[in-house]
């Protein structure tokens, strides 16, 4: 691009700001990187400015943030931590140029973050209900926040069931969390893989084999249907089949929630890229009930 093509820009010497600049990201420092599965890493970070850190920590499960890698660009990403945890981190698969740039960063490197954005899961509204979480592959990233949040407010909710499926045992997400949830009393955590292979410990996979929906039909599993919110997140094909299973079990469309992903530039309802039907995924979502998703009328 030709710099002389930039029009009408003068340095910031004018009157003081009246409104907050929603496009201005704040500097963040990378603390450490943990490899989750192939091409997926978790990046622990904090804002350089502790005031920003405090402000950011007011996010809700299901919200997202915009991450800037200057010179490459900016991308939206889910917030897998719960606001009840101390650490702030992203879990990101390397798919395009921005995520590739993030994957190359070393601890201590600086990048920038703005947010949190979007509506998030209305966890307060779900008090007194059973919660069923169904996550396919990296679909567990956005659901992790809601799961940890629900466990931190355990007495607010009735049964908590977690169903997580991956292609192979090596691709199960957040393995330390999965082990913890399997051991937590009052939490039913069920895992499955499409293809058995060697798991991380080198021992053969002894768990369920099949798509995540196959867990619902196991004799020792009884999915709570009445007074239940189902959280579904995963690849499009998994999403379609799980929705079909849930509806067959008797779930109401309005009691199934998911978070949508779209190409986004601004995250604040202005750039137009994430608009589906009458909704901006960034400000009206990313959390929608299945009833709403159906009305939007676009591929998931």
């Amino acid at each position, binding site marked *: 691009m030709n*710099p002389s093509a930039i029009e009408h820009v003068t340095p910031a010497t004018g009157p003081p700001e009246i409104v907050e*600049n*929603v*496009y201005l990201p704040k500097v963040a420092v990378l603390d450490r990187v943990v490899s989750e599965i192939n091409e997926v890493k978790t990046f622990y970070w904090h804002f350089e400015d502790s005031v920003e850190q405090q402000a950011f920590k007011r996010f809700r499960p299901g919200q997202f943030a915009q991450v800037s890698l200057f010179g490459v*660009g900016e991308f939206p990403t889910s917030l897998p931590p719960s606001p009840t945890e101390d650490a702030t981190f992203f879990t990101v698969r390397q798919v*395009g140029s921005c995520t590739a740039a993030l994957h190359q960063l070393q601890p201590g490197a*600086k990048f920038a973050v703005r947010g949190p954005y979007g509506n998030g899961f209305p966890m307060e509204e779900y008090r007194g209900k059973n919660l069923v979480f169904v996550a396919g592959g990296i679909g567990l990233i956005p659901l992790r926040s809601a799961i940890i949040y629900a466990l931190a407010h355990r007495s607010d909710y009735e049964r908590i069931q977690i169903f997580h499926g991956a292609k192979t045992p090596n691709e199960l997400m957040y393995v330390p969390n999965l082990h913890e949830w399997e051991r937590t009393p009052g939490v039913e955590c069920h895992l499955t893989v499409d293809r058995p292979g060697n798991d991380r410990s080198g021992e053969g996979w002894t768990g369920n084999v099949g798509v995540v929906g196959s867990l619902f039909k196991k004799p020792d599993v009884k999915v709570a249907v009445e007074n239940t919110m189902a959280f579904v997140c995963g690849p499009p094909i998994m999403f379609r089949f799980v929705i079909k299973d849930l509806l067959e079990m008797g779930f109401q469309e309005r009691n199934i929630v998911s978070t949508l992903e779209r190409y986004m530039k601004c995250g604040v309802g202005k*750039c137009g*890229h994430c608009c589906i039907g009458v909704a901006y995924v960034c400000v009206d979502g990313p959390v929608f009930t299945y009833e709403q998703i159906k009305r939007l009328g676009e591929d998931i």
Partner: protein
Amino acid sequence: MKARVLPRNDVLKIVDLLRQQSYEVIAPFRERGRDTFLEPVTDQNRDRIQLHLPNPYYPPKRYVFPPIERLLKVERSNGDLQIVPTYDFQKRAIFGIRSCDVAGIYHLDRFYLGRELPDIYYQNHRKNLFLVNMACTDPDLDIGEECFCMCTDTGPAARDHFDLQLMDLGDEFMAVAGTPAGEALFADPIFRKASPEHVARRRAILEEVRKRFKPNTTSWFSAAIQAVSRGEIPEETWDQIGNRCLECGGCTYVCPACTCFTVTDHSVEDNGVERLRIWDSCALSGFTRMAGGFNPRRAIHDRRNRRFFRKLAHYFIQRELSMACVGCGRCAAVCHGDIGMPSVVEMIRHATTRSKEA
């Protein structure tokens, strides 16, 4: 309504007054034929300003929403990041902005500033902008084949959202103030009080001008809004519209009410980065393509559908409290596939009346 009159020969003195108040004044000019454009006024070109001319295709929205605008400047040194937002506080006046384009800027106001998370870059341009609206009164020069402001209720004379409105009464111009800033100009001796006779002439001229618009498509606009909002458009009509689209994006770039943009980083000297926002178009295939290649909006008719849905669906009109189509007719003029807004409204009319008869 504060109304004044001024002699025809003094109209350009309004430009001089604004320039004295350190406004950069933008005004319409004409080269040969249909070649009309908006440009900053200088001492050299001041006398060539046109009072009546076909509305330039390149809309004045660029003075509040530039096609390329720097949002941030980032300095990188020793691993540290300095992020500095860059703002433009230039005082600008658009002299001779048409009523449709005034409505276009009002729509942008509603979109960028009317909701939560207002856009500070837009606000900085907007609060330093002064609008001198010229009502369209010349049926040959001002009103084009494609104009349909009568259908969108935005012209030929804007009712609000300008600072000053001018109307050609022949040997005099009538000036109406829309804001205190516009009224302040009336302190200059070129303006004198308007008589009831002037107001009557204004009304008679407008009545005459309204008759010059072609009656077709006009009354169908609200019917099209209803059909789009209720999802009554047959899929084959969207297909027909899609089949005619060449994916050039022209309609969105000339539209005074289109708001979409993309954001890109641009490297500058000393390892610096500039973050720019650039006009984008929902007609282009990459508009919704995500990293990794998945594109939820693949088919071309889906993308066309999107533009007309955004402009005509009642939901968006309600959300912004203004319609994203202002009847300027630019899309109709530039579209090679003849799917500008009036044609689309016409296609919707055919399709919905046919399906009702069937």
